[in-house]
């Protein structure tokens, strides 16, 4: 297939995935800030939301203060922020239009319908209620796109590149949450009896839609190191770093098989997966959770670059 087509598909999926992630962050932050201060401490959760979205410096160029209004506007509706939900959907739609022929009717319908619907939220949300509806709708749109891709696409390179986009973006998103909130997850943070951070941990899990999953996997109350374990090493958790890399390797292998050629992207992805497979939580904590996550983000970015180099130029 055309390199440009593959590139468009790869990024189309990334934009949709990122839009959903931003919606989850905003939702989790709304919940957190609705709690009395005694439960969550004195931190500015809105500022944290901006760093978790990875656009703190861009934000503070425009705004002085990180409050609900500014952050919601910047992450959800701003046209100045190239990573806002609106911008993500707009770029996704423009990518989709450029590769119309590589999409199924259902995928086009999902992304074009989302884009048409987006116009209804022209000037942002007028109330918190409307904002919640918007965030819910963003997640539904992403599910619809993802589901239609999964259910209708031919299993060929177009599908594989589009899936790669999902998992490279998802790995980045999960890692960013961990990067910003790592201090909450260190083992010495647990306090017996109604920990101050309980709601923070719940918020982390909620932002990757894993709160219920946690209980099914561990069958006990929230423990910070287990939250980290779930998000980093648990294969069965679809947003964990390990699971993302299972998938990345799988789709890169499919591409290599079809093209009859291995390349640097395949080798790098397998390297990252092996490291994840060989890691244990206590080892990670000993060497430093923050360093571990930082390295992962760098490696994941490098893999994105390698995929681009090998296929998309």
């Amino acid at each position, binding site marked *: 297939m*055309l390199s*440009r087509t593959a590139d468009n598909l790869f990024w189309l999926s990334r934009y949709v995935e990122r839009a959903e992630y931003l919606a989850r962050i905003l939702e989790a932050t709304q919940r957190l800030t609705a709690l009395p201060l005694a439960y969550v401490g004195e931190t500015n959760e809105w500022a944290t939301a901006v760093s978790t979205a990875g656009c703190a410096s861009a934000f503070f160029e425009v705004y002085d203060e990180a409050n609900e209004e500014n952050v919601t506007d910047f992450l959800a509706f701003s046209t100045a922020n190239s990573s806002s939900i609106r911008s993500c959907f707009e770029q996704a739609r423009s990518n989709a239009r*450029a590769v119309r*022929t590589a999409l199924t009717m259902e995928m086009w319908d999902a992304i074009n319908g989302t884009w048409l619907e987006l116009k209804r939220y022209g000037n942002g949300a007028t109330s918190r209620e409307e904002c919640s509806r918007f965030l819910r709708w963003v997640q539904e749109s992403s599910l619809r796109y993802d589901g239609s891709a999964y259910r209708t696409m031919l299993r060929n390179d177009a599908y594989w590149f589009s899936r790669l986009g999902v998992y490279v973006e998802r790995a980045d998103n999960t890692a960013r949450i961990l990067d910003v909130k790592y201090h909450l997850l260190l083992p010495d943070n647990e306090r017996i009896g109604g920990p101050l951070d309980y709601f923070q941990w719940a918020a982390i899990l909620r932002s990757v839609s894993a709160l219920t999953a946690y209980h099914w996997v561990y069958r006990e109350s929230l423990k910070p190191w287990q939250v980290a374990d779930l998000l980093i090493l648990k294969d069965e958790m679809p947003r964990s770093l390990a699971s993302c890399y299972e998938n990345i390797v799988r789709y890169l292998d499919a591409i290599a098989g079809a093209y009859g050629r291995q390349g640097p992207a395949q080798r790098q992805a397998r390297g990252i997966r092996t490291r994840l497979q060989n890691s244990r939580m206590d080892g990670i904590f000993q060497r430093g959770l923050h360093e571990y996550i930082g390295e992962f983000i760098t490696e994941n970015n490098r893999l994105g670059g390698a995929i681009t180099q090998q296929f998309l130029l």
Partner: protein
Amino acid sequence: MVVAFDEMKGLNGGGVRPAYAELNRWLSEVPRDVLDYRRKEAELLFRRIGITFAVYGEAEAQERLIPFDVIPRILSAAEWRIVETGLKQRVKAINLFIKDIYNAREILRAGVVPADLIFRNPAFRPEMSGQKVPHDIYVHVAGIDIVRVDAETFYVLEDNARTPSGVSYMLENREIMLRLFPELFSRHRIAPVENYPDELLATLKSVAPSSSSSDPTVVLLTPGVYNSAYYEHSFLADKLGVELVEGRDLFVKDDIVFMRTTQGPQRIDVIYRRIDDDYLDPLTFRPDSSLGLPGMMSAYQAGNVTLANAVGTGIADDKAVYSFMPQIVKFYLGEEPILKNVPTWRCREEDHLAHVLDNLHELVVKEVHGSGGYGMLIGPMASKVAIEQFRAKLKTAPKNFIAQPTLSLSTCPTCVDEGVAPRHVDLRPFVLTGRERTCIVPGGLTRVALKDGSLVVNSSQGGGTKDTWVLDE
């Protein structure tokens, strides 16, 4: 103004013509709100599918829908036979004409067409002189605009020999109609159009360079998403099963064109290009074009890639050349043209100009290189001031204009706000010419002027489209 010929009711409300008998009956049965409902449904479908077009110079209306009229336009088998034979004859002559212009130039030496009309024409490409093209075919895809004035007479209004568009509407209109009005289809036997993409692909493959493999690689070259016909480009590429490429996806090495794929460079044999000559290759044509591909012309001239349509076919589009088309048909084929030309005054000739200036209020005056309905004067509809302004323009550069009588275009029943009413229509059939045969799928794109009394059918000027049915015997 003269009363128009209505394709359903004939002239002056005569009896319903046989081809329309069933449709007329159906129209009288179907409740108005059902029509309205289906109309809305059709619009929704078009918007969902994303069939849009861009109107140049309208920033806020970046993507607009062409209005679709749910009442089909119907041609009988006998009527279509005339049109089809006439089209084949005309396109054959156009191909011979272009070949002659870029090679022996017999028609110029015989004095049938004035030489300066060709050599001073911006669409004339000196680079093509003496250039061989596979099987001497220059115009692989032609869109010939036809209007009708009475039961027997079809006129050719315009020849589009460059990159005619609109065929996606022909195909989508039929799909939508099949979905919305199955009961109407069950009452008729209608010749299908859905095989057009297959025929187009076969046509394109048949003109691959002789050096290419037995299964040549075809691509569709688009200027990109900002082009007004981008939807059509992606639609066709999809139906053809070929890559939709932009200039930046291609590169030329050793006079061979390649595309960049995820598996490395892949050689290209045939380029169905939907991009004008001017933008094809910045090394040969407009140096400021970033849409095309540097080196494409040298690969083309080396015979390593086929361009469809060929470079330089625009001379046959020119409206002044058009006025010579009857003589051109006779010159190459020794036959009388089956499809007539609209009588045309060439303002470049003094006596013609004098006539035009005296009769501006009843003529249609067009720019010879223009298209899309831009920059023309419709005398009977224009204000005195507009006519005087146009007169001044005409006097400064008479060579740039031709004039035609205001034709009373035929009308078809059309769904408008006030109900079902006659509206003026034209027809653009698409003629495919390959190595062995010429193919025209029955029908084409019918465009309709939705405003009462309007004669301008162009989508950029508020025209709509209809499904076009050719009845089986």
